[in-house]
C-alpha cells in the first residue's frame, strides 16, 4: 500500500482555486443539490436581493457563513472569487495606502465599473438624486475623495488620504458590468424568477431556482420570509442576523441646545429619566417580538465588544406624565420617522406621551429620514452595514451632513485610525467617535432589536448578509425535496 508513495506534495494550497462561496461542509450535515425556493422580501430589499444573487461580490468576509476561508492576497480578512490580489501601489512620493491596485480574474473594465459604482454616489434611473452607497458615505465622512482607473488588466483606486479598508468597503459590492450581464450564480429567467446558471465567478449554487417576491398577500406562501412583522410561514425556523438593528434618536444641533426632550440635566439624570420613561423593554417586547431591549450604545453587540459607557446617575426623578390637553400653539418638536416599521411607530407614540408631559407637542413627519434640517429629531432604525465598527459608524455619520458639522464629530472623524490597517486601532477610534456622538447627545440610542427571517425548516444554509439581505447561494433542501 505504501510502495507507491510519490514525491512530496509541494503545491501550496493557497494557490488552489478554493471557491470562496463554497459551503464548508464538515462533520455536520452537508448539502445536496436541487430544488426551488420562494423568497419574500420587503420592497426596499427586492433590488438588493436580486443583485446579490445575480452578480458576484467583489469581496466577502473570510471565515464566516458567506464562504471560503482562503484570504485574498492583500486582504487578510476577506476572500474573493473576482479579485485575485489587492496591493498598495508603492511608487516614489506616494503615501502608503493612498493608491491600491486590484488584480482581477474578471475583465478590468467590469471591475472598474463596479468599484466606481460602489465607492461613489451613482445615478439611479427615475431618481433625480444620486444614490449614496454605504462606502461612499464612509469616504464622505472621513473626507476622502476617490478616483478609479482601469489600466489594462488592473484597476487602480486612488484616495486623497490613506485608506486601508478597501476590501471592507467593497464587501458585497456586486460585479455589475456596464452591460448588466449577470456574473453571479443565478440569472433572471423570468420576472421574479432566478435560475441556476453556469459561468459564475462563484461555485455553482445548490438550488436550481429562486422565486423572488415582495411582501406576501392573502394565502401566498414562501420558503423564506423577510419581514419586520408577522409572517405567513408559521412553522418556519427563525434565523437571526449576526448583529441587531439599533433604534436611535438623531438630534439636530439646534435641538441639542434647545433640549426639548430634557436630556441635558446634570450628571445625566435627564437622559436616565428619559430612558426610564420610554420603557424600551416593553416596546421591544410588544413590537420587536421580544427580541430586543434597551441600549445605551450605538454600536450593537456583534459589531463592538463591551466597553465602558457613562455610568447612570445616583438618582433621577421620574418624568411627569401629564396627559392634559395642550393649546394648538404649544411648543412643537418635529420627528422624522421611517415608514413601515411598527416598532419605530410605537417609539414615536411613546415619545409623544413623554413630550406631552413636558407640555410639548410632537409632530411626526414620514419619509423624511436622512434629510438634514427637515425635522428637529430623526428616529432611525439603523443597521450597521458592516461588521467593522469604524466603517459602520462612518457610514452612519456620512449619511447625515448635520452631524459632520459638529466640532466633536469632526475631531473624531479626523482620526486616521478609523481607516487604518490595524483592526483594534480602528475599533478604538470608532468607539471614540461613538462616545463623541453620545456625549454631545447628537445621537441617543434607545433600543436594540434583532433582525430575523423565517425559513422553512427543511431549507438549510440560508444566511443573512450583514446588511440584512438573505442569501441562498449555498442554500439546499435538506428534507428530500
Amino acid at each position, binding site marked *: *500500500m*505504501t510502495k*507507491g*508513495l*510519490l514525491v*512530496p*506534495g509541494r*503545491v501550496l*494550497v*493557497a494557490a*488552489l482555486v*478554493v471557491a470562496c*462561496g463554497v*459551503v*464548508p*461542509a*464538515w*462533520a*455536520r*450535515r*452537508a*448539502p*445536496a*443539490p436541487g430544488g426551488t425556493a420562494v423568497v419574500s422580501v420587503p420592497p426596499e430589499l427586492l433590488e438588493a436581493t436580486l443583485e446579490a444573487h445575480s452578480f458576484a461580490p467583489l469581496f466577502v468576509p473570510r471565515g*464566516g457563513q458567506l464562504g*471560503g*476561508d*482562503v*484570504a485574498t*492576497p*492583500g486582504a*487578510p480578512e476577506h476572500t474573493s472569487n473576482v479579485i485575485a490580489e*489587492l*496591493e498598495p501601489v508603492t511608487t516614489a512620493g506616494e503615501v*502608503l495606502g493612498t493608491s491600491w491596485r486590484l488584480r482581477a480574474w474578471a475583465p478590468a473594465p467590469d471591475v472598474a465599473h463596479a468599484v466606481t459604482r460602489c465607492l461613489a454616489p451613482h445615478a439611479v434611473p427615475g431618481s433625480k438624486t444620486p444614490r449614496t452607497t454605504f462606502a461612499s458615505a464612509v469616504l464622505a465622512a472621513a473626507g476622502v475623495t476617490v478616483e478609479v482607473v482601469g489600466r489594462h488588466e488592473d484597476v487602480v483606486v486612488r484616495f486623497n488620504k490613506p485608506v*486601508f479598508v478597501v476590501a471592507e468597503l467593497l464587501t458585497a459590492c456586486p460585479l455589475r458590468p456596464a452591460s448588466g450581464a449577470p456574473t453571479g450564480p443565478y440569472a433572471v429567467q423570468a420576472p421574479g424568477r432566478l435560475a441556476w446558471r453556469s459561468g459564475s465567478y462563484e*461555485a*455553482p449554487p*445548490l438550488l436550481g431556482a429562486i422565486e423572488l417576491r415582495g411582501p406576501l398577500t392573502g394565502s401566498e406562501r414562501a420558503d423564506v420570509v423577510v419581514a419586520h412583522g408577522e409572517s405567513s410561514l408559521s412553522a418556519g425556523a427563525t434565523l437571526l442576523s449576526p448583529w441587531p438593528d439599533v433604534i436611535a434618536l438623531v438630534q439636530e444641533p439646534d435641538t441639542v441646545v434647545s433640549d426639548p426632550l430634557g436630556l441635558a440635566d446634570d450628571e445625566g439624570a435627564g437622559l436616565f429619566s428619559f430612558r426610564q420613561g420610554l420603557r424600551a423593554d416593553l416596546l421591544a417586547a410588544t413590537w420587536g417580538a421580544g427580541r430586543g431591549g434597551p441600549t445605551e450604545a450605538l454600536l450593537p*453587540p456583534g459589531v463592538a*465588544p*463591551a466597553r*465602558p459607557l457613562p*455610568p447612570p446617575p445616583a438618582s433621577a426623578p421620574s418624568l411627569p406624565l401629564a396627559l392634559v390637553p395642550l393649546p394648538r400653539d404649544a411648543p412643537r418638536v418635529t420627528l422624522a420617522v421611517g415608514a413601515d416599521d411598527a416598532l419605530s411607530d410605537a417609539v414615536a407614540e411613546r415619545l409623544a406621551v413623554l413630550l406631552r408631559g413636558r407640555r410639548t407637542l410632537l409632530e411626526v413627519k414620514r419619509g423624511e429620514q436622512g434629510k438634514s434640517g427637515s425635522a428637529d429629531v430623526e428616529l432611525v432604525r439603523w443597521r450597521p452595514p458592516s461588521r467593522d465598527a469604524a466603517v459602520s459608524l462612518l457610514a452612519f455619520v456620512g449619511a447625515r451632513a448635520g452631524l459632520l458639522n459638529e466640532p466633536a464629530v469632526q*475631531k*473624531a472623524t479626523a482620526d486616521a485610525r478609523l481607516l487604518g*490597517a*490595524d483592526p*483594534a*486601532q480602528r*475599533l*478604538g*477610534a470608532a*468607539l*471614540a467617535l461613538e462616545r463623541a456622538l453620545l456625549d454631545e447627545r447628537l445621537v441617543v440610542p434607545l433600543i436594540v432589536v434583532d433582525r430575523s427571517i423565517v425559513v422553512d425548516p427543511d431549507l438549510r*444554509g440560508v*444566511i443573512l448578509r450583514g446588511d440584512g439581505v438573505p442569501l441562498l447561494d449555498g442554500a439546499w433542501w*435538506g*428534507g*428530500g425535496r
Partner: protein
Amino acid sequence: MTSARAPWLVLGCFAAASVCARAGDGAPAAVDRGSVQGFADDIATAVQARAAVEGIAGAVRVSVEEVRGLDGARVRAALLPRLKKALDGAITTSTTTGREPLFLTLAISEEQGQLWAVAVLEGPRVTSPTTIVVRRSVDRELEAALGATSRRTVGRLLLERVGPLPPLTTQTPAAPSAASPSSRCPVLDAVLVDLDGDPAHELAVLSVCGVTVYRVAEAGVSVVSGPVALPQRLWPRTTLGWLVLAGSTDAGPILWASTSAGHSHFVDVRGGRVAVAPPDRVPLRGVMGKDGPHALHWRLGSPSLELPLLTPGGVDVLVPGVPSRVRDLVRLPGDAWLFVADDGTLAARDEGGVVSTLSPERCGDRVLAIELDGDADLELITSSASSPGEPDQLVVRRLSPGHESSTVLLKSPLGGGSIAALAAGHADFNARVDVVVIEELAGGDHVVWRLEHAP
C-alpha cells in the same frame, strides 16, 4: 521576561494543579510569560502608545467597570493588579487620592472565543476620552484565571476545551501590512494516530491545505508535523473530506485522505509524502478490515456515498438492508451495521436484517461508535443536523444492545461554532477513550475540545 515567570507559576498553581506540577517537574513552560500577564502587558503597551500619540501623561486610576462572559471577581483579582503594575511609563498607576488623576476605565469581555479589553482614558486634562482596544485568543490559562466557561460536566461525561488549534496555514504572497496573517484553511476531518510510539496518540487533521499533525496535551494543542499538501484541484461548493488510518509502515502511519475535490491519496505524515490511492473512493473509519479501511464510492458535489462497499482489495461486500446511498457507514459487532442515511437519519440494521431508526432527529454526516464509558454498550457520537455556519451541538447517544434504539446521554453546544471534525482514540496517557472534537468558530479559528468519561 524572567521576572514575569513567577506570576505565571503562581497563577498556574491557583488555576490548574496539573499545569503547576508539570512546570515544577522541569517541563518547559508553554509560554515564556503567562497569558494573563501577557494580556495585561498588551493593554499597558497599547495605553502607553495611545497616550503618547495624544500627548497624555500622568497618573491614572484604573478600574474595571464592566465584565461580560467572565468572572468579574477573578478579572479584578488576576488582571487588575498586573495591569496596574505594568503601567510604567508616561502613564503610571495613581498611588495617591488627593490629586485629580486621569481615569482608565476598562470593560473586559469574552466574545466568540476572543478576549477583549476596551479601555477609555479620560480626565480633566484630556479634551475628549480616548479609547484603546486590545484582543487576544482565549487559552486555558485565561479561562482558568478569568473564569471563562470552558468545562461542563453532564452526568459522568466531561467535555472540556483544550485550546485553539494553531492556524492551518499556507503563506500568501506579500500583503500590505506586515501584520497580515497567512491564510487559514477549513478543517474537513481528523483522526487520532500514533506517530511516536507513546500511548498518547497525535491528532491528524485534514483541511483544504493538506494534512497536519498536532499533539493534544494539557497545555494546549501544538503542531507536530505538516501540513502535507495535497495536489491542486478545483473544489466544488460542498467541501468535504475523509481521513482514515490506512495502515502503517516502519516509517510510521499511512493515512488515506479523500475529498470532494476528487483527491484520493495516501499520505505519509512523517515523511511528508503523498501517493495516489484508489480513485473515486472514500475510506470509512467505521469499517476497518485486516488490510485497511473499506470504502464507498464518491459522488461529485454530494455528501452522499454510494454502495457497494469495497474491501481494500477492491472486492464488493454485500450489505443487505442498507440504502444504496449513505453519508456514513459503521460496522457494529456481529453482522450489524450503523449508518447515516442520505436524508440524515441515524439508523441501524441488526443481525437479522431489521432496520431501526435510532433517533427521531436527523444528525450530522458522520458518526462514531465507540465504547466510551466502559458499560459494554456502544456510545454513538454525532453532531446535530444544523447547517454549516449555524451553532452546532455535540450529541452522545447510548446504543441499545439489540441496536434497535438509542438514548441521549449528552447534547451540548460547544463555543457557538460548527463541529468540523470528530475523532476517537487515546489523546492522553490514561486508559480511557477520548473523543476529540474540532470546532470552527465564526471567525475561522478552530478550537479543540475533548470529551471523555470521568467516573
